């Protein structure tokens, strides 16, 4: 087994790498090929899933993969509570977008302001520190008591859940800028305004975006738990409906669609970040 960490920074290294890669075909190398392993792993996963369903180890608690596909297809055509799968997906997505937009448009400026102005910080930080440790789920009960079980309560939960990482990351983003960068601007005769616009924002941008990224995944969890508790539409509603009807294929279908959308939205934000902030150093692994 070889490490792939050989730095190809010089020509000598590149040639060495090429020589290392030009190997004769061998069974062992083929078996250790990454894509081959991935294929084995996925096959094993689905086979196990199918097997568990087949043997009824979990009783009626699981549906075979192909039944889940059928369930997704049926949900797309038929309607549950007046909406097809697309309608429910859009219902969830819509809540996320509204909540996310409200939270980020308040939290990001507030976080930046807190980092730049000591007085704002002194006023807001203690109250924020009080609210910070409460898990977003804990707000569901409050939201229902305050806003009923309609749309506003779900959006409120998303706003509360996403607010914290947004604010925290924009605050830390500005605070953790290397002071040397400011020194450069000051040395070149920049004003406080230049400091903020030329250094503060660009340097804090990756951190702010990371905050948005975290918020987005929290938003999916929030909307889901809100819908699980009470809803008439949304992916969480499909899942809970499947549970009440004892139909694990519906539950799994909801989970699969949910996973897909959570993954897709994260991907969109990642690409948006690459596009908007090309100066970010590549630090995200895994």
């Amino acid at each position, binding site marked *: 087994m070889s490490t792939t960490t050989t730095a190809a920074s010089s020509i000598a290294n590149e040639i060495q790498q090429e020589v290392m890669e030009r190997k004769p075909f061998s069974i062992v190398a083929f078996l250790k090929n990454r894509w081959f392993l991935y294929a084995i792993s996925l096959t094993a996963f689905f086979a196990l899933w199918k097997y568990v369903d087949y043997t009824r180890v979990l009783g009626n608690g699981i549906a075979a993969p192909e039944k889940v596909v059928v369930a997704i297809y049926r949900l797309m055509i038929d309607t549950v509570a007046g909406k097809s799968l697309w309608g429910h997906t859009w219902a969830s997505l819509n809540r996320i977008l509204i909540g996310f937009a409200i939270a980020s448009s308040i939290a990001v400026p507030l976080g930046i302001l807190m980092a730049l102005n*000591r007085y704002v910080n002194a006023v807001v930080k203690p109250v924020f520190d009080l609210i910070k440790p409460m898990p977003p789920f*804990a707000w569901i009960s409050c939201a229902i008591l305050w806003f009923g079980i309609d749309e506003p309560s779900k959006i409120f939960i998303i706003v509360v859940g996403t607010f914290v990482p947004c604010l925290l990351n924009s605050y830390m983003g500005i605070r953790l800028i290397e002071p040397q960068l400011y020194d450069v601007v000051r040395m070149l005769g920049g004003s406080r305004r230049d400091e903020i616009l030329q250094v503060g924002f660009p340097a804090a941008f990756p951190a702010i975006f990371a905050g948005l990224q975290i918020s987005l995944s929290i938003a*999916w*969890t929030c909307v889901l738990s809100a819908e699980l508790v009470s809803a008439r539409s949304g992916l969480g509603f499909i899942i809970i409906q499947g549970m009440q009807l004892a139909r694990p294929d519906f539950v799994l279908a909801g989970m699969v669609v949910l*996973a897909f959308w959570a993954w897709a939205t994260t991907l969109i934000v990642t690409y948006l970040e690459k596009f908007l902030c090309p100066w970010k150093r590549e630090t995200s692994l895994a």
Partner: protein
Amino acid sequence: MAYEQVKVETPLVLRILPVASILLFFGVWQAVVELKIVPNTMLGSPTQVMALFWEKLFEANPDGAVLTTHAYISIIEAFTGFFLSLIVGVPLGLLMGWFALAEGLARPIFELIRPIPPVAWIPLTIFWFGIGIPGKVFIIWLSGIVPCVINSYVGVRMTSPTLIQMARTYGATDWDIFKKICIPSALPMVFGAMTISQAYCWTTLVGAEYLAADQGLGYLITMGRRLAMPTMVLLGMICVGLTGVAIGIIIERIEKRLLAGIRR
């Protein structure tokens, strides 16, 4: 020394403002309830919450258990899930970081399961385990394992290549390098995983207890809602928040103690 440490005196205003802000927050909260701007069916005042806290320490009604029992159950569940996720997640992540075989086999499944929010597993968990403690532990375990795997993986991957090459030059085997270089150099990241994973576990706990519970802090909050007692909801939230902070501090202490000898 290039720079001299200068002690800057914070202005009086900046020392007063935080206190004033907190006092104002509680003052407004109390006033809003006292003056019936917000009805008492929607919000309880801080003093009412304090009173209920004292009462709930000894009185099991109306939700069936005293506060300490709720807290005890929650902590037991959260910690069981947390330790299980550490026991499974950290070795898995470490192995995935170093051995291509482990990565090739575990990564696709991990990537498939990762984007599903742990809360989404609740219905399936109820099918599988019923509404007892194992189901909740399973959900907490799911939420805790993700940061464990990712951080251990990244920790191994960030091992300085120089060290690995050096060891290889001296004829170390893969297993030796993994054991003597990768694991120690990944330790700070692994402890980072502990902190994150603990926070995730504690957050998910409340979610898990929402749908399926008969005891626990999350259950206290749900019961508060069902009985339309906002004071109880608030009490539950505050207990969850405070306990979470306390656990966080303890974990941080342990981390500092254990990492004392390791250079970052």
